[in-house]
């Protein structure tokens, strides 16, 4: 592959999963129409979910899931040491994601509730960046294939990708959606990072903030708006903490 005379290297990539639903990894294999081109521009050297071929010679590691055990920490550190670029994919890896909902209860109670006396290894929910340094956060729950491909194109070109700084509302308006607030629903679109084409409001469903907060989001104003519209704090807090994207607001 060449671009304006520069030979482009196919980056060697590895895809790894930690504590998560593997939905993000699945997105990578999903929408096969472009799969062939995708594999033409990258070399997949480690992707357990779809391939038995596995080696540890990768440049870019895509890592899904949050970190909840010590053995995961060690595994992640190994990946970090190998990869030139480490990309956190999905809400679990970038934010902690829904996994963090368990943190509302003491850890010992959590284990007892599900496993009784049966011993299991688990710990607090950590984002990848709580454990190692992360180069790029690819947000979403799940990630979108088109954004993943866009990221790959940037990586191949050697460009640091610039994610939208603006909130979901921009794209929501561009879809000509009716604002779900007008229909009496709550939405975190005004403070959530855009880039998903407002897929939830498009489906008549408020945004839950899976992509993390937008740059310099105006939380105070949103809280005022939500309260004015009669949403109760308890309800708001539930929504805001769902993906662990807005720590400490409520």
């Amino acid at each position, binding site marked *: 592959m060449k671009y304006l005379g520069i030979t482009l290297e196919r980056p060697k990539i590895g895809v790894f999963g930690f504590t998560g639903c593997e939905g993000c990894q699945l997105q990578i294999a999903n929408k096969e129409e472009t799969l062939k081109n995708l594999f033409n521009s990258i070399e997949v050297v480690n992707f357990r979910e779809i391939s038995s071929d596995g080696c540890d010679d990768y440049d870019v590691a895509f890592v899904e899931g949050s970190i909840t055990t010590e053995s995961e920490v060690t595994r992640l550190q190994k990946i970090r040491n190998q990869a030139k670029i480490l990309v956190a994919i999905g809400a679990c890896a970038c934010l902690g994601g829904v996994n963090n909902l368990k943190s509302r209860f003491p850890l010992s109670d959590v284990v007892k509730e599900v496993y009784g006396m049966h011993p299991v290894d688990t710990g607090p929910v950590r984002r990848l960046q709580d454990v190692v340094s992360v180069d790029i956060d690819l947000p979403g729950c799940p990630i979108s294939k088109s954004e993943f491909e866009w990221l790959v194109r940037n990586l191949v070109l050697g460009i640091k990708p610039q994610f939208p700084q603006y909130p979901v509302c921009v794209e929501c308006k561009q879809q000509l959606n009716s604002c779900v607030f007008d229909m009496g629903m709550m939405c975190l679109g005004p403070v959530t990072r855009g880039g998903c084409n407002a*897929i939830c409001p498009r489906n008549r469903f408020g945004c839950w903030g899976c992509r993390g907060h937008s740059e310099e989001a105006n939380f105070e104003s949103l809280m005022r708006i939500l309260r004015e519209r009669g949403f109760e704090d308890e309800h708001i807090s539930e929504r805001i903490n769902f993906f662990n994207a807005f720590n400490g607001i409520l």
Partner: protein
Amino acid sequence: MDVKIGKPINIAIDDLTRVEGHGNIKIRIENGKLAECVWEVVETPRFFEVMFKGLSIEMVPLLAARICGICSISHALASARAIERALEIEVPGPAQKARLLAKHAETLQSHALHLFFLVAPDFLNAHSVIPIMETHPHVVETATRIRGFANMASDLFGGRTTHPMVIKVGGLTQIPRKRQLKALAKDLDATIPYLSDAFDLFKTFTMPDFIRETEFVSLKGKREYPFIGGDLVSSDGVVKKEDDYLAMTNEYFVDFSNSKFSRLSRESFSVGALARFNNNYELLHPKAKEAAAELNLKPGVHNPFFHNLAQLVECVHVMYESKEMITALIDSDITQHETPYRIKRGEGVGAVEAPRGILYHHYRINEAGKIERSDCVIPTGQNHANIYYDLHKLVEKLIADGKEEEISRLAQMLVRAYDPCISCSVH
């Protein structure tokens, strides 16, 4: 027969590939005897049952979907159904149809992913689908077409391919417009011919010869091949009500697995495509029955490798049934898509046939509309024990047949045939 007192064989497959989640196979053969054979589930648990606690019911389908990246629609449906039963409300007819269509889309998506991307490489001597793109482009094209339709349908009925947001307590946030349905029907018509390519391919694969008498558990269909709700049935004759699922699953702990094991009439039982096929064959779409005949597949199969073929037959079933349902939707009034509800204290179970087998969600709601207790029983969780005992028998058979060199490959293929969804089972 030569009695070989061979070298000890040690097979340790860490992180089995081409399955969802993390699981290990450990096999040790000493003095020509099976000394150890375990199916280890090492996935880290996420404690969904705790995560649900205290949440409002409206968030439940959303969170439930995150249990699994592949069968998120099933989880959303099972949880919504459980809550709706707790609230004692009925979802409007068109929404029920649309939900079933979403379900079908997922079944197709999941089966096609498994068959073409995860299973086919074993039969085509490849490590993954990537080299197959070069060597067998038509295989990939068939998969792409079928999954392309499935993706389009789940975008339409679920909002996106994974983690649907359209499925909500009481119905759906919206129902596709007729124009969209017509476009989908057209795409489906163009996709159905590709099924025969899939059949041509799978007819060339010989499933390994292995039989272990098994109890099969599934939903019990009344008039239709069952996917959402209804009675529970086992091939050993057990029939139970949906609410009585605990009597069907009987979960217990083993020390080498983070997922629970299950049993019913025997040491283990099996759920999934083969169980549905065996228990509800009569209710399959005529086209699917034809397809089964083409593969020489008759109800009462006890070879676990035939899970693959049963999945293929189900692909036929869901595609033809989807076609009929879409046509029916286009011809009917589809404006009603949700039932308003009042929050009240209650308890409910929702059973749904996920691609990998029967899935149960169970919630208790307090008067404020918050979840008090929840329980989810995952198909792969129910299959773990069966996989474990199958593995034993398979390895013993291979030792007896003197085919030790086959053990590793066939053991992996066996586990893969169940299409396990491990992270889901350790939710």
